[in-house]
């Protein structure tokens, strides 16, 4: 398989077939939490794309050069791969913190555009999910970064679609027992079913 084909498969797989929210069920909390209005959904999407790409890059660096192979230290050969989860959490949290500090100084418009969503992403399981998946699939740094970016694009796509649906739902006459979160969850389920239609594409 050629490299171009491999990357194409990676991107389409990440955006449509194995969509983070609708097929893997990761990042459901922001998916339901910030999807009430389209503009907040766009803000969140931007922040997630930014952080997930960066996090995939850094965590895959750590995985490939620190965790994957045993390190020989003073005659001992030590495998540190069991530290994967705690290390990824530490790195992602610090990374987001770091990005926030730097962004506030060098690009206040971008900082205010991302707003509260940037620190919220620290606890977003989609970011942790992409780091773990990268390690599990044994992706190289380049592949992992591309996968991270397009997974986030898939998340953004799902979020924007869902928030548009919810804005329309605001005007609909929903029966009382289904109002609010209930109809939102039903809508999410139907949206997920439509994305299942992409399965088998690659």
């Amino acid at each position, binding site marked *: 398989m050629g490299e171009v084909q491999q990357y194409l498969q990676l991107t389409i797989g990440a955006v449509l077939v194995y969509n983070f929210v609708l097929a893997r069920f990761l990042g459901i909390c922001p998916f339901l939490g910030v999807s009430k209005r389209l503009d907040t959904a766009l803000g969140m999407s931007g922040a997630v794309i930014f952080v997930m790409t960066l996090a995939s890059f850094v965590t895959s660096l750590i995985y490939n050069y620190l965790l994957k192979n045993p390190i020989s230290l003073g005659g001992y050969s*030590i495998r540190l791969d069991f*530290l994967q989860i705690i*290390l990824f959490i*530490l790195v992602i949290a*610090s990374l987001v913190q*770091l990005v926030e*500090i730097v962004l506030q100084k060098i690009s206040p418009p971008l900082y205010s555009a991302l707003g*509260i969503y940037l620190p919220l992403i620290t606890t977003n399981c989609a970011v942790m999910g992409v780091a773990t998946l990268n390690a599990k699939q044994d992706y190289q740094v380049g592949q992992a970064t591309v996968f991270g970016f397009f997974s986030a694009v898939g998340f953004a796509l799902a979020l924007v679609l869902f928030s548009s649906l919810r804005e329309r739902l605001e*005007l609909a006459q929903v029966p009382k027992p289904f109002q609010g979160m209930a109809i939102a969850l039903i809508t999410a389920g139907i949206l997920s079913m439509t994305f299942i239609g992409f399965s088998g594409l690659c």
Partner: protein
Amino acid sequence: MEIFIAAVIAMAVIGLVLGGVIGITARLFRVEVDPRIELVAELLPGANCGGCGKAGCADFAKSVVTGENPPGKCPVASREQVAAIAQALGIEAGATVKKVAVVLCGGDRNQEKVQTLYNGVSDCVSASLIAGGPKGCAYGCLGMGSCARACPFNAIEVVNGLAVVHPRLCVGCGACVETCPRHLIKLVPRAAKVHIYCSSPEKGAAKMKVCSVPCIACRKCVKAGEEEQFVIDGFKVSVNYDAASLVGTDILGRAKCPTGCLLSETGHLKIEAAQTGEVA
């Protein structure tokens, strides 16, 4: 045992490095923030609900300090908290005129002819989009309560198909002003107690056909009042809120408004009773 020690050392080293890097960057990239923003943020309830339209309380505090939003726009803060914020900032900003919202229409279900039956979504914007709404007057209150739902303080009540503001509850945040598709809600100085509850620019006769309480620009109030207390604008008169001496409730007796659109705030709340002369 080695692996145990190695894990602890690895985590400690990475943690220390990351902590150090964050500490140093925080120093290098420190941003000076207006201390008033922190002050306002502390006085806010800290619910981070986003009800004000901003991303969290810190963001809202910033917009309050810059003057973009009034502190009353926070839907969670009690009136005491809003007052505390206004006071904290007001010392520097100077005294501001306390405002109150008023719905400039007196046409409830009994005063105004209902032309069509509307069965759609109970929302003023939706209703106004369909052939100008159910009521006869194309400039009157639709009575679906879009403004009442927008009010964070529950100060607007829809009484018999007419939105009325309870001045005691209204903080003058202006959240309702934009929601009215007919632009009937105005923020006026709290000192103004009398208003002309009509916003229709049509001719008197045309208004009389659809409503029993329009302003027909007879100018009785203008003559009874002092100079510049009223503004005549085409076929209607309105209270001049910029006047040096605002018109007081004593005008109601002197003007003898023939249609009854010149009302006090309490008169508007009980428009039924006001029409029969029970409340001045």
